[in-house]
Each structure stands twice: as C-alpha cells, then as structure tokens.
C-alpha cells in the first residue's frame, strides 16, 4: 500500500518542470479488488513532493525496491511500468492543460491477486520540502517502532501461550488425579474429552471439531500422548474403586442423586436405592449402576466397611452376630449403637451411664463423648420407663368428664353434710 501511494504521489513530478520548492498535492485513491466491494479503502492524502528531481521521487518513498521498466508520454497522458517485488505495476495518468490536476489508474498484478486503483490528484500550492522530508522520516521511524513493539508483544503472547499450554496440560493431568481421589468422574471425563463439558474444551477441539482447519488450528492444544495415557490409567483406577464400598460412597456424594420425596405423606424422604446413586460414574465406566450396586452391601460386610453399612441396614442387622464382636474390638460404636444393644450395654454401663452429656463434654474427652453419643441410641428400651406415655384421644374427653363428675359428686356429698 505504501509502495502504491508512493508511486502515485511521485507521478506528477515526472511531468512537472524542474523547480526547487516543493509542490503540495492532494491525492484521492480508491481500490478495486476482484471479489471485494468496489471502491473500498478510499483515501485522501496530501503529499509534498520535490518537483526538481521527479525521477528520484518516483523511484523512492517506499518504492525503493521497484524498478521503472518503461515510461511513455503522449500529450498529457503519461504511462509508467514498474517491476516491484510484489508484482508489476502500471500507472496511467492524464493531466489537465495547466498540470494542476490529473486523473489516473494504477494496475497491480501480483501473486496475491490483481488490483486496480483509481486516483485523482489536485495541486494545492507550495510546501516546504525539508519539513515534508522530516515528517516522512519521523513517520517511518514511528512505523518501525510500532512494528517492533508489535513483534515483541506477539513474541510475549506466544511465550505466554506456550506457558499457559504447559500449565493447562499440567492442570488436566492433575484433574485426573483429583478425579480418582474425590471419585469425581467429571474431572476425568473432561481430561479425556468425554462428556458434554468436553464439547467446547480447547484440548478436545482437535478431536471433536468437524472443520479440518479448526482441527489443524487446535492440534497444538491437544493433550500430549503421555499425559493422555496417564489419564487413561487413572480412569481404570477410578472404575476399579467405584466397585468398592468406599469408592462407591465417595462417588455417591459427588453425584448427589436425590431420592424420593413424599410430600403427600407429610414430607418424608427416602434415599435413592444403591442401584440409582451413581449413574454418571457408572456410565463413564461403561457399566450399569445396578450392576455396580449389586453385591455392594455384601462387599461392605466383607470389609467390613462400617460407614458404608449405614446404607445396608437389613444386611448390617442380619450380620450382627458375626460383626458385633468385631465392632467391639474395632471400637465401631456407631454400628454397636444401632445393631448390637447387648454388646453396647456393658460399654455404656462402664463409660457412659450416670454421666451426663455436659460433664462428659467438659472433660474434653472427645473419644468418650463420641462413643457415648453412638451407644446411647441403643440404650433406650431396656431402661426403666418414666411415667410418661401416650395420651389417649378417645378417652381424653372421658377423663375430663369423669373428673368433672367426680367433683360434682364430692360437692353433693359435702352438701349432705352441710359443708
């Protein structure tokens, strides 16, 4: 572009008579590129040119690399052909009789395509060549500085991108570790470009994009092969853990599948059955939830996974004869409190009976506090009942009536005795 303008601006001076002062021209240009809207990029510039050394001017000012190969004059029409690194430029201009205006075209044929420019020039008056020269040099220097700044910024952006890429890959790999530790299949799925979250993830675009250009563009963001292999191995570990009571319990917590709300029954809640608690994790591992859940309670008994047995009250209860002694030995007081009242009682009697919650708390014995809290659940039914009990509904009024009647009778008797 600069080359073109320089060529255009320089043209009048091939024609003007040699003079020492500069001539100020206003040059209007419009580009026409095949396939693009006509007349785009319209510009108006003012150029102060040396009319005394026109030929030098024609070859300089951004067109240093162009060479004039042909030059013709026919009346007021001037034609010049130049060979430039980008291609061949042919400029044709026609001046008015006073050489104060011209109309013309510049055609450029290059590897990148052809282009035509229309131009109009109008001489405005005289100008100071030296000032114009300085302005051009300053503009060139500023342009060079800007180009250098841009290059530096681009280099920094590229370096940052590379660093971000490296950090991104490290994060993906770490998320595979986290996925196993927390039993969160989403973290692994994203790293392995599975699931809906992966649809727009940069590291998955190379794999998922339909446009070949996009695929190519995002190739650089794809996870390195060794990282991917690492995450695949972590997936296997996740799926193995999912089949254990502890892993299953963790995944249950992550997925948070809600059970059944019975609003009509006064607002009860029944947790989802085991076979419905980890649908996403199961799908991630290519297995049905029901399949993973089947036998989970049996596995929990084998451990035993004491905490998981909360989910298996029927199995935990039926295994009590076998598990209660183990629970005593392992100090699993929650299990003891719920399923082993006979085993819990001696412990309760020894450590908790007669000691109230407040004083046990004040002693700051967290272990005993937790133990008595867990065991206390079992202690109710065997201890002597208080006088408390249910209030009969059908007899409440009967009792009141009876009391009233009794009072009336007493008063009558008193009346008999004159009291």
């Amino acid at each position, binding site marked *: 572009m600069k080359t073109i303008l320089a060529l255009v601006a320089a043209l009048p001076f091939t024609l003007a008579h040699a003079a020492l002062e500069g001539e100020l021209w206003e040059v209007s240009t419009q580009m026409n590129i095949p396939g693009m809207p006509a007349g785009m990029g319209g510009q108006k510039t003012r150029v102060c040119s040396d009319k005394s050394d026109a030929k030098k001017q024609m070859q300089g000012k951004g067109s240093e690399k162009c060479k004039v190969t042909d030059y013709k004059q026919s009346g007021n029409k001037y034609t010049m052909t130049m060979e430039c690194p980008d291609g061949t430029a042919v400029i044709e201009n026609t001046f008015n009789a006073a050489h104060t205006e011209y109309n013309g075209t510049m055609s450029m044929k290059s590897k990148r395509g052809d282009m035509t420019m229309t131009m109009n020039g109008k001489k405005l008056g005289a100008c100071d060549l030296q000032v114009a020269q300085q302005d051009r040099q300053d503009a060139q220097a500023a342009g060079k500085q800007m180009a250098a700044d841009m290059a530096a910024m681009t280099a920094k952006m590229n370096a940052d991108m590379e660093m971000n890429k490296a950090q991104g890959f490290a994060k993906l790999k770490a998320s595979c570790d986290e996925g196993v530790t927390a039993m969160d299949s989403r973290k692994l799925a994203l790293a392995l470009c599975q699931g809906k979250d992966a649809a727009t993830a940069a590291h998955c675009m190379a794999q998922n994009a339909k446009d070949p250009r996009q695929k190519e563009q995002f190739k650089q963001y794809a996870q390195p092969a060794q990282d991917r292999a690492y995450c695949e191995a972590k997936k296997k570990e996740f799926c193995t853990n999912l089949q254990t009571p502890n892993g299953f319990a963790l995944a249950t917590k992550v997925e948070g599948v809600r*059970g059944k709300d019975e609003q009509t029954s006064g607002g*009860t809640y029944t947790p989802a059955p085991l076979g419905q608690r980890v649908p996403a994790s199961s799908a991630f591992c290519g297995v049905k939830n029901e399949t993973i859940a089947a036998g989970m309670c049996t596995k929990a008994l084998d451990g035993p996974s004491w905490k998981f047995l909360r989910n298996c009250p029927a199995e935990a209860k039926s295994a009590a004869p076998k598990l209660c002694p183990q629970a005593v030995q392992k100090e699993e007081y929650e299990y003891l409190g719920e399923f082993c009242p006979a085993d819990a009682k001696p412990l309760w009697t020894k450590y908790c009976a007669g000691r109230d*919650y407040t004083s046990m708390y004040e002693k700051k014995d967290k272990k005993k506090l937790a133990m008595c*809290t867990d065991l206390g659940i079992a202690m109710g039914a065997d*201890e002597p009942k208080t006088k408390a009990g*249910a209030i009969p509904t059908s007899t*409440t009024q009967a009792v009141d009536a009876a009391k009233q009647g009794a009072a009336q009778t007493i008063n009558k008797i008193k009346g008999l005795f004159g009291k």
Partner: protein
Amino acid sequence: MLLLAAFSAASYSAEDRFPRVADAYLVKRNGVVIWAGHEQLRMAPASLTKMMSALVTLELGHLDEVVTVSRAASRESGSRIGLKAGQQIRVRSLLAAMVVRSANDACRAIADYYGVTFVTRMNQRALAMGLHDTQFVDPCGHDKPGQYSTAADLARIAEQAMQKPEFAQLARTERISIATTDGKKKFSFTTTNALLGRYDGAIGVKTGTTGRAGNCVIALAERDGVRVLVVLLNARNRWWNAAGLLDRAFAFNS
C-alpha cells in the same frame, strides 16, 4: 387412669430406624423426614409448649410493654428464674427467660398479661397450622388433662417458631441477663439446651421435662448447608440420643 395408645389415621412412611431412642421421635434433614417412630402419637409436650407460647407472644407484638408480675406467676413451680409478684419487667425480657431458661414464672407472667384468651390463641394458632393432634390447656407445659401434642406437630411448631428472628436468636442463646424495668433486680441464667456451645452447629430449639412427658428435646443443628431437626419425646438419654441422631442425620446418605 387407663392409658391407651392412640394413633392418627395418617402416618409418615419414614423408616423407624431407631426404635429405642425415645417413645416418639422424628428426624428431619433439610425439611424432610428421614426417620420417625410413633411420630403421630399424642403425648404430653411439657415445656415444648413454650414454643407456641413464644410464637403467639411474638405475633401479638408489644414486646416493649411492661408487665407487672402476677402473684400466680411468682408461685409457679418447676423451672423458674425467681420473679416476685409486683416486679415490673418487659415482655421481651420475659420471653427470653421463657425460651432460654424455660422459666415457668416468666411464661405465666406473659400469659397473665395477655389474659384468659392466651391459651385460646395458642390453640387457634395450632389449628391454623393444621395441627389437629395438638391441644393446649396450660400455656407453660404443665401436665394437664387435655394437653397433648405429637412429635410431628411439635416439629412443625419448632420450624414456625424458628422463622421468627427473635425466637431463633433466643433459641441459640447460651446465657443471658435481663432486669426489671427499674434496673434494681437482675436475672442471669443459662440455657437448658445442653447442646448449645457443645454440639457443632447446634442452634436450638427447646427442652421440656415433666413427670408425664419425661425428658423431651427439640434439637436443631446446621452444618455446611445441611439442617437437621430432632424431636425426642420421653428419651431416656436425651442428650446422648439427640447428639447421636444429629450425627447420623448429618452422615445420612453418605
């Protein structure tokens, strides 16, 4: 007196997981019942009654009105702060004593101040909430014929009361001081709720004990966005069991 068990027609389908824990109990997690046993059984509510008394007091308003303690109030039995007849004290202060210390003298002073319709208002409020298994005769919870409620109803009353900021604040207060309006007599007392300040997340609600009701408690705790309400009516080991149920409810489904 013959005691016959009576059950309402409808009952929860919640699991009775801990039948030994109390004569009647109910556990709610984030507003839904997860375990319950005999929760529709009509029982003496003891001082859990005071939740309704507090609710009605708050809804009547006039908390800065000055109450002259009645003789009847000063002669109240059971839990008391030691009010004397003729002392003048604001409704707000009496409310604090009633909720925090379960003080019967403070409760009676409020009831007498509002007049004979106070208990009627309590029953109307219960009906308005659809609590057909609840009836009050005594505003402070003394065992009286015709005074009954259920674990399920009491849970609802607790939830309603806890929606009142003033009640919620008192329910979680461990110790407080009040004074007569002339400032000459101060009363300092601590909560009857042993879980406050001890059980992680405990924020309420009310205790109750009478010969007929046994040891009762409504415990509320909140942790990490999970809210658990436990109602125990006639629990042998009230605090151990409340804490035990709270622990299990927080761990529920995990």
